[in-house]
């Protein structure tokens, strides 16, 4: 099964390397990338300084594998990459990276958005927001 979890933030250079690897795939005309960045939200006058991510890793990897297969069957894609942070990711850093590539742009766009929606609702990952007074709050996806 493809590696999904990355300890700590997903760095811009990692994303650049991932993009560069596709230059040899000459049937690709369109890439859609989604990056989820940790926001410094204000909760009852406290600022979020980081999110600590935990996951039920085995189940999450299985679920993401199923999502991969279903999205590959539904859209005409050349490539798909999904990475999620575990551990601490500070405000302003990136915790989710979804990358789809296709011949024409419509497939890459639609697949990328659908993968992000499914990861947020179907994959057992939890984010604990760390506040600037050292308290914490379990994040809830809308």
């Amino acid at each position: 099964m493809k590696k999904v979890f990355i300890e700590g933030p997903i760095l811009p250079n990692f994303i650049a390397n991932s993009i560069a690897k596709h230059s040899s795939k000459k049937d690709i005309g369109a890439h859609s990338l989604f990056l989820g960045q940790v926001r410094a939200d204000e909760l009852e006058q406290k600022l979020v300084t980081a999110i600590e991510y935990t996951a039920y890793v085995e189940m999450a990897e299985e679920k993401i594998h199923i999502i991969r297969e279903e999205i590959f069957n539904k859209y005409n894609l050349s490539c798909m990459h999904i990475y999620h942070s575990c551990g601490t990711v500070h405000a302003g850093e990136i915790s989710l990276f979804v990358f789809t590539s296709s011949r024409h742009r419509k497939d890459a766009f639609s697949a990328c958005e659908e993968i992000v929606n499914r990861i947020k609702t179907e994959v057992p990952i939890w984010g604990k927001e760390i506040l600037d007074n050292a308290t914490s709050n379990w994040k809830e996806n809308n």
Partner: protein
Amino acid sequence: MSIKILAFGKVSELVGKSTWSATEIKDTKELKEHLEKEFPELKNISYFIAVNKSLIESEIILNPEDVVALMPAFSGG
């Protein structure tokens, strides 16, 4: 022979542990009753149960070696 229990997110915080074992629990309904007796705050939050990495949709019998995960709403991304 016992079942293995995993707790995540807010559930793990409430019960103060993330993995333990239990014996003599016949089904998921009985498991929840046991847990909510020991940790009454669990009644106030909603959580899903997965048995062997599959979310259950109704109560099911538990067998020895089953892995039961207690999972609050997901918040990845």
